[in-house]
């Protein structure tokens, strides 16, 4: 593919098969610094699997996966990749249910992750201010002492986005963030993600077309593990292949 230097995320010819089934098939993709990319595509297209590969959960059989134009992600484990500055929000909201909203954020906050540093950690005034700021952004200030288990589905999604903010990553991978949200929450989420994308790279997977339109970003449509079409949302949704294999269904 093209030049890797200066890219935030660079995938070239990536393939992975599960028991002979090719979930990702020669996938190539580039995300620039401070760029947002929306990924659409039918269920089973391999969108989540792509995120698994980037975050070290799944090892590709083939292909190149580079972060920041130089770091080979296929050699690193999940924790190392997270510490490079790649944050992820899962398709099914995954927060730590038996702990408070505050503690969820405190654990996510970007701080040294070593055992003894974590054991002897005491939040500084700065840390507390940052957590309060994030609580404000994701509108959970009033529920900071509640167990995450008691949040609504939409609020869990927001808490997870808050955890992403706390991690302060350079690249955010956001898998179906607005599932289970009300319309107004969806609009707010789009605003929030656009704001984040001013300074960081964001990859958003979503089915909700009006949400993708709100994002106003470049769009890639995946199908059967590779790129079907790329461009603006209008270009992609006018593409006959996309209509046949995704939108028309």
């Amino acid at each position, binding site marked *: 593919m093209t030049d890797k230097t200066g890219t935030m995320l660079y995938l070239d010819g990536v393939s992975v098969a599960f028991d002979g089934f090719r979930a990702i098939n020669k996938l190539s993709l580039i995300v620039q610094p401070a760029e947002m990319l929306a990924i659409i595509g039918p269920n089973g297209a391999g969108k989540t699997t792509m995120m698994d590969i980037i975050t070290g959960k799944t090892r590709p059989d083939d292909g190149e996966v580079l972060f920041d134009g130089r770091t080979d992600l296929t050699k690193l484990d999940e924790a190392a990749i997270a510490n490079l500055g790649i944050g992820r929000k899962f398709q099914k909201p995954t927060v730590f249910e038996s702990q408070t909203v505050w503690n969820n954020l*405190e*654990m996510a906050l970007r701080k040294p*992750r070593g055992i003894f540093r*974590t054991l002897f950690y005491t939040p500084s005034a700065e840390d507390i201010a940052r957590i309060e700021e994030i609580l404000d952004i994701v509108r959970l200030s009033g529920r900071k002492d509640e167990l995450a288990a008691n949040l609504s589905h939409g609020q869990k999604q927001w808490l997870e986005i808050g955890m992403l903010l706390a991690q302060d990553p350079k690249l955010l991978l956001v898998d179906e963030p607005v599932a289970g949200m009300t319309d107004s929450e969806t609009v707010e989420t789009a605003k929030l993600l656009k704001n984040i994308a001013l300074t960081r790279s964001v990859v958003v997977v979503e089915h909700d077309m009006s949400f993708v339109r709100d994002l106003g970003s470049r769009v890639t449509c995946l199908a059967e593990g590779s790129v079907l079409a790329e461009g603006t949302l209008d270009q992609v949704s006018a593409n006959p292949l996309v209509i046949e294999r995704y939108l028309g269904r």
Partner: protein
Amino acid sequence: MISQALFRALDRKAIWLVGILVALAILVPAANLLIPVGQPGHVPTYVVTLFGKYLSYAMLALALDLVWGYCGILSLGHGAFFALGGYAMGMYLMRQIGDRGVYANPELPDFMVFLNWQELPWYWQGFDNFWFACLMVVLVPGLLAFVFGFLAFRSRVTGVYLSIITQAMTFALLLAFFRNDMGFGGNNGLTDFKEILGVPVQAATTRGALFAATALALALSVLVCSGIVNSKLGKVMIAARDAESRTRFLGYRVEYVKLFAFTVSAVIAGIAGALYVPQVGIINPGEFDPANSIEVVIWTAVGGRGTIVGPIIGAILVHMGKSYFTSALPELWLFALGALFVLVTLFLPKGIVGLLGQYRAARARPERSGNQRDAGVDPQPEPAE
């Protein structure tokens, strides 16, 4: 840094618990030694020793809870760390016998003379020194746990597979310690102790001192465990228990978090074993029996896992029940224990402590009794995707 951690450890429950244990460490031996026999308030020596033993079991249960309740590692081999600590102390006590043994060999314990050994094996060297033995009490279980945990957690062995290999570990040690040529007294183990630090093991004052030492060691373990679980690392432990893969994506090395807890836990278990042996007067390979380790799980479950007081209460109550049953209805004890475990698992997932908590919560806030506010056990933690 460390003082802040200590301060955090002192939440209200831990203060109470430490206070009670320190009081017991003073009052129980005093009631035994200072109040004459027959007077009200006198505590017989056998009771002092019995409860000293229970407190060492409580320490073992607390150690298990640190890994099981907080990290979700169901170790079915914690008895092995307890036994190793016990053997290290037993070796010191054997060497204190000196020439007062049956064969009157100043250097070799009786069983070695019996096996026609001519000199002390290398791994018995140094055990005549109390502080060296104490070092080994900490080092041997700690090192075993570190190596075992490093291999297991790095390969991401979890759940039932991990439980099985911990059972295999204690079983392998059981078989090894049964062998006479291992040099640990084989089947009979180590016994007939005479003195500890120059005083007779059997003396009432020694018994009192051992009780006090056990109560204080338990108090210290409470401080350490509560300091860990109330720290950010403790939150990460619970996070790894409930959603291991999610915790990794936050950048925490879950394998090292587990390794830390597992090693600390093994050290506490080893110290508990070392305090147990001089009080019961014997250590033999039976302590490695896999069934023993499973019993520790039951004490912890009964008291309430994922809490600091729970395992302590569980260990003491189950043993009080055991001494009642084994004198009244000996043949029924194992059935009672099994039934207890089943009942607790089915109806009291948070044990006795959880039950008390629910009762208190229901009285305090009848309108929202369902909300458990502390980071307790999530009965059905869902795996991250």
